[in-house]
């Protein structure tokens, strides 16, 4: 209101200086913390990354959003704080009887919408690099090459690398352990009566430099597959298949755990992915197949033995 005499509207200059100083400190702290973030407390501000390109791209999308968010945060909280300091009731202070300002209100409505539009565009620009698998590297595992149209679990919903070749692993959630089924060759041909696929629990072994596509399912309740450094979470919903992928360059162990409450021992349902060089992986997988085949054979022998002892022929496969 312009009718209020000028001297009455003036607030002491030091209040404004304090507020500006505080706003400056606030942004300095935020930016300083960000600058230190890559050091000891990298986990303070950004999601985990470094295992697979999709996780890295989520991380960079997060960081872009974070920079926008810091500007909004400092702007809004700074204005709020400044307003509280500058316009606190004092002797002789006359509150301005303003009821609104249409132009200002239209302005900030479109301003807010514009910021979100930019973020939506950035998300769309990043989307493909996060959800679409890349091709395996030149030294990738040979099993992945066989995946072209031959994978057991690839369906029309599953995204495959541009060349269509990936190592497809089935992830099965159950209370309270993860099971992984690998595309084997030996078991399938040596004994077609058996399940025909090698499998492990809890620890998934994968070749480096190879695109691994996951087909995530559940046998009982809803679980959620999550290895933070290898990209996001995907729920294992009984009756449905969910898909994701990763490609690991460095050998190592990547830890994670079930992220959807699945019962009393939800916290114990851990998962880890061990990445090894392709040659070592092939060796490991064929050993696994042989071990499983040997165990299956031993079990079959034990069953036959048991049958002949008891004379019961119906104890085939309980």
């Amino acid at each position, binding site marked *: 209101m312009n009718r209020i005499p000028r001297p009455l509207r003036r607030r002491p200059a030091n209040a404004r200086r304090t507020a500006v100083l505080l706003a400056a400190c606030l942004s300095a702290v935020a930016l300083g913390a960000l600058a230190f973030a890559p050091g000891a407390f990298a986990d303070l501000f950004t999601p985990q990354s470094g295992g697979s390109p999709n996780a890295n791209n989520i991380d960079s999308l997060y960081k872009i959003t974070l920079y926008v968010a810091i500007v909004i945060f400092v702007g809004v909280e700074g204005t709020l704080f400044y307003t509280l300091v500058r316009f606190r009731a004092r002797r002789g202070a006359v509150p301005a009887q303003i009821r609104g300002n249409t132009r200002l209100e239209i302005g900030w409505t479109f301003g807010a919408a514009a910021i979100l539009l930019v973020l939506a565009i950035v998300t769309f620009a990043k989307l493909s690099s996060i959800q679409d698998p890349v091709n395996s590297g030149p030294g990738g595992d040979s099993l992945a090459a066989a995946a072209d149209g031959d994978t057991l679990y690839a369906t029309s919903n599953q995204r495959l690398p541009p060349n269509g070749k990936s190592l497809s692993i089935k992830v099965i959630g159950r209370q309270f352990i993860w099971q992984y089924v690998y595309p084997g060759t030996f078991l399938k041909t040596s004994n077609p009566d058996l399940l025909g696929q090698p499998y492990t629990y809890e620890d998934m072994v994968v070749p480096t430099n190879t695109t691994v596509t996951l087909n995530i399912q559940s046998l009982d309740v809803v679980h959620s597959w999550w290895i933070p450094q290898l990209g996001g979470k995907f729920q294992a919903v009984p*009756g449905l298949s969910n898909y994701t992928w990763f490609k690991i360059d460095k050998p190592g162990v990547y830890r994670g755990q079930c992220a*959807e409450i699945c019962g009393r*021992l939800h916290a114990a349902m851990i998962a880890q992915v061990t990445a090894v060089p392709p040659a070592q992986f092939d060796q490991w997988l064929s050993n696994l197949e042989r071990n499983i085949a040997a165990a299956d054979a031993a079990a079959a022998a034990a069953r036959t033995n048991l049958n002949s002892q008891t004379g019961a022929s119906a104890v085939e496969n309980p």
Partner: protein
Amino acid sequence: MAISTASRSALRPVPQIVADKVEREPTGWYSWLTTTDHKRIGILYIVTTFFFFIIGGVEALMMRLQLAVPDNTLVKPEVYNQLFTLHGTTMIFLFVVPMMAGLGNYFLPLMIGARDMAFPRLNALSYWLFLAGGIVFYASLFWTPPEAGWSSYVPLSSIVYSPAGGQDAWIYLIHLTGLSSLVGSINFYATIANMRAPGMSWGRLPLFVWGILTYSILLIVALPVIAAAVTMLLTDRHFGTHFFDPSNGGSALLWQHLFWFFGHPEVYVMVLPGFGIVSEILPVFSRKPIFGYRAIAAATVCIAFLGFLTWAHHMFATPSPLVVLIFVMISSFLIAVPTGVKIFNWIATLWQGAIEFRTALLFCVGFIALFTIGGISGIFLAEFPVDWQLNDTYYVVAHIHFVLVGGAVFTIFAGIYYWFPKMSGRMLSESLGKASFGFMFVGTLLTFLIQHSLGLDGMPRRVYQYRNYGHLALYNMISTVGSFVLAFGVLLTVINVVISLRKGANAGPDPWKGNTLEWFTTSPPPVNNFDVVPRVRSVEPMKDIRREVERRTGVTRSGSAADIPVPAGATRVGH
């Protein structure tokens, strides 16, 4: 009186209820059981829900104690699962939603110049249904409480994986509190639509009433969906149907859709009345009109509408088509716009004001600060590729608590500090109140800010134990310490209320120089609320009335309600 008689004679009579006799207000416990007075029902609601708030808070503290150090063995895993199920369900269904119903019950009729709700006996029924829901739910403590979380995802909540009756107690809680809210919402709607003071057009409706109006409409639309969903769960559990059983042609994903179609609007049910409370308090203590009344009312309605289009953002990690994910991301972004507009409007209301730092105002300002953080973290969660990393982690826990502690708890406390003088006739202690605010504000920041980092560090929610990798031990300890600071702040307000009920200074009818009609009557108001209902000429009828009093008497501040002359257009009744 002389003035009123003179001014009245010149005016057309306004139809009013004429009371021949006013009976003394009945007292004693029996009168509370049988009451249909909206103010008493409001107090019943407020006291009961606050009791549940304390219980839910204790459950939260027990969880924070368990998580204070890695690999803790303080509570067993099933007990931990029961704790977070009880905590979430209690805070939502037994605290925030019915607390808003309680504040609405007490103040909505007063603010619109009505003498009671449209259906007083239905109003009583709503309270008793709510209480029955709470009792049924907490009775499960004596057997096995539910363990599947407040969202009770199937198949975990099915009879195979949750055989105990606690899950059924949860279902009955949803049924009973849902019915309570449905009846209450229809009552609110009917009251607002039909019983406003003369002259109170939709454009002069107090913003808290706009909040309760949208709260009611959201509940009326969303509750039948959850009522159907939990009934389907009940028949799946006990009568052999297979709605959610994938091995028999059902769908486990269907539950998530039905639950969140209700669950997301429920979030707005919890915060929109709070937005209304803030929109009432800020103008009073900055001595300025609300900035952009129409924009705030329109934003409220916008949020309510968009609130129905965003439910699947809770389901970004499910096997859902890309087009669904994109649609929900856009709609979630859209809803941030009206919410942002409100925050700008509130700050603009403070701008160039003469801000009096009363406790109620501090809680409002604390709300703006905290809710802004919750809103910003919401933008990260709306980007579905980012959400793939963040969902079901402590990042989400941090987000919902900034939204709900900021948007609901702080606004409720603001409402308590603002309206306690009206309800009790006594003032709360300002110094205790400010201390309470300080502890609660710092406690909230300590507890929940670091939880963003816990989530980014890889800690999923709802785990009873964690291994110490990254900085999990440090972050969790900070959060646990913060939760006790927050709890201490709440305790100070409880102490404040208990002391002030006996020893608080006399409040008088209008201690804050309020803008709305509840300040027109005595504190606490008589059974019939108003002997006269003034004609409303603006959004701030009490400001008009005070100005009129000043004009006629030459005195700048009126003493008590009895001295307030009848404004033009009103008729005195009774006595």
